[in-house]
């Protein structure tokens, strides 16, 4: 076995073939250290599930922080959440759920060798994700405009038309700045995940155009799909917790 040149190829990130393996058919996607495609696929999937578990645990810390704030200051959270736009939040929820559907359809299309279909489903998914970010941008802009920001940046503009008073609210002990701190931390971290997801789906789409996926090999599509569903799932929890407080 010519170890030297095999290793060289591996170091460059290529698949090592022609290294004296007896395997007659060596599919191009199979990396040198796996025995067969089945092993590679199940390893990649397990790795992805474990990664998703770490994501879930990371967000669980934020959810815990949210519940601590909410249980300490239930009235404050109830009042502060009225400052969020329920309509925009609901639109984003629908958009993301729909994008999960198109993502699932894209995986199915790859699996059944329908490359063109997969392309369109992926494109719609990307557009949905971008719509989500645009809506998020609108929401954030409004917050910045109104001064409903986290911590020391909280300076809410208020006006009481009846009394003819106008001014800014400063933060106070157990005040709204806590809620907006949590709101921006949660939606911000989620938004970063959406951006990463857009990048990943564009990458998948590009590979799909190059004909990398088929019923033989579509693990990356499936794994990106799993990631996307998790991002969607987290939003499904964020929406009621932040926008629909009772």
């Amino acid at each position: 076995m010519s170890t030297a040149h095999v290793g060289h190829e591996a170091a460059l990130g290529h698949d090592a073939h022609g290294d004296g393996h007896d395997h007659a058919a060596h599919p191009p996607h199979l990396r040198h250290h796996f025995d067969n495609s089945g092993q590679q696929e199940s390893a990649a999937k397990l790795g992805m599930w474990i990664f998703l578990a770490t994501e879930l645990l990371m967000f669980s810390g934020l959810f815990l922080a949210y519940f601590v704030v909410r249980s300490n200051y239930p009235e404050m959270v109830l009042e502060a959440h009225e400052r969020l736009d329920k309509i925009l939040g609901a639109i984003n929820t629908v958009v993301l759920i729909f994008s999960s559907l198109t993502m699932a359809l894209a995986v199915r299309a790859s699996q059944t060798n329908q490359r063109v279909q997969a392309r369109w489903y992926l494109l719609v998914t990307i557009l949905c994700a971008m719509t989500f970010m645009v809506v998020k941008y609108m929401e954030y802009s409004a917050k910045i405009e109104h001064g409903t920001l986290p911590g020391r940046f909280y300076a809410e503009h208020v006006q009481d038309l009846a009394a003819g008073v106008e001014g800014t609210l400063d933060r106070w002990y157990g005040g709204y700045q806590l809620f907006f701190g949590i709101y921006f931390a949660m939606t911000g971290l989620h938004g970063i995940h959406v951006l990463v997801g857009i990048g990943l789906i564009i990458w998948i789409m590009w590979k799909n155009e190059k004909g990398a996926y088929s019923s033989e090999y579509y693990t990356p599509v499936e794994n990106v799909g799993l990631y996307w569903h998790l991002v969607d799932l987290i939003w499904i929890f964020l929406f009621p917790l932040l926008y629909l407080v009772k």
Partner: protein
Amino acid sequence: MTTTTLEEQIHGGHGAHPEEVDYLRAKRGIWSWMTTVDHKRIGVMYMVGTLLGFLVAGVLALIFRADLMTPDSELGRELYNKLFTLHGAIMVFIFIIPAIPAALGNFFLPLMLGTKDVAFPRLNLMSFYVWVLGLIVLLAAIIAGNLDTGWTFYTPYSIKSNADGSGNIAPLVLATTGAFILGFSSILTGVNFIVTVHKMRAPGMTWNRMPLFVWASYATAVIQVLATPVLAITLLLLMLENVFQIGIFNPAWGGDPVLFQHFFWFYSHPAVYIMILPAFGIISETISVHSKKHIFGYKAIALSSVAIAIISFLVWGHHMFVSGQSEFAAALFSFLTFAVAVPTAIKVFSWVATLYKGVITWNASMLYTLTFLFTFTIGGLTGIFLGALSVDIHFHDSYFVVAHFHYVMMGGTVIALLAGIHHWFPKMFGKMYNEGHARIGVILVFIGFNMTFFTQFMLGSQGMPRRYAEYDPVFQPYHVISSIGSFILGAGLLWTLVYLVMALKNGKKAPANPWGAASLEWATQSPPIEHNFHETPHVDTDPYNYPEIDRTAAKAHH
């Protein structure tokens, strides 16, 4: 002779391959190292990196130990605080968490499982570079200013941005960012190991034929994957607290500083087991190989690693007995802490039983293993003192705590790491070190270590608080003994470094299996070829089967 026996066993008779070019010489040049995806080279790079961290943090400790020789502080309080913070942060995040899993684990996990590499080799290389990045950011924190919170970053002390926005937050934000990045590296290693153990085992390598080092690394990886994300979010919130003053941990704005402690220890207590479980794995290997006897209680040791991993998630509150958490919670945490002692004791008794009627070789690896049994047991038992509610209130934040965790971290993990390095050095580098030199090292380390830290138990029980630059002169004799001990320990470790580096250059060529071990990593040449094995090994025996010597094996296993 034993070499061929093992090779025959594994390759079914056609043992002797001509010597082939090994992984160290397969490719040349610094670039071939920087871009390597070979788990062995990544392991070696991690080893060099983590040991450098150990050296730096160790020198810092020697500096403040020298300062502690007198009750007054020459360094001054501020510098003293900075030094112990750096010592802790570097030791924990840069050295001890990746030391065994990422260095020895990376190197030996695939070899022990009989596979060519870990499941995700490129992710493995990435984890190394992420680690380097984390290291750089952490070092930037030192340059940025005064980092004096201790490695635990407790709030509200770590909230450097005051109500008026004054206070230099740069060092703290950089340090937490660094720890965040290092955590990411740790997660990547963990994901890789779990998948490797599940999916990459050689044919015939059933779960019950895996070496115990693999079991321990597996349990470690589970903790890394499940606990580290919580640290990530904790540090992220702490950063937000400093940059935006979101108020979640700051009592001035209605936040809860104790919440930070809950968050922090939810990661950092399991992290203690990230540090110690791989050490248990090493000891299980060395004690069996160097006494030529089948490990006693294989399944008990394997599953106790998993049990420790599970219980480790339920004991974080024992760091918070004086934080004002509810008494009911404290009692529960105390009970669960005692529960950890059960699987741990199962291991210790199994190791001791392994020695019984074994053919014990008094080489450096075995001497370190025996040192481990001695020092780790002291560390473990004093942990029970600290887990007991009433006693802990007396010992809390005293030198007793310092001594306890150094007996576990240093007397446990570092001693086991030394046992492992001496055990696997011939395999990793293909050279034998001088056994006589190594024994001198063991003696220096043993004496130095116990002198340094045993005195600290006495200091702590008499009321010497930790993290103080100055102290009551009544404690001086103990401090002097402790400091002299630390110099002996430092000399011993430096000596170890010297003779190992000498061995790299001038050592005798190591045979494939110098200890007559039965696990797979010894079935390939020393150092291994780049793809580990000539043919994928088929495993039909367990890794502690020493048929020629061991007469108890048959009985133990049927």
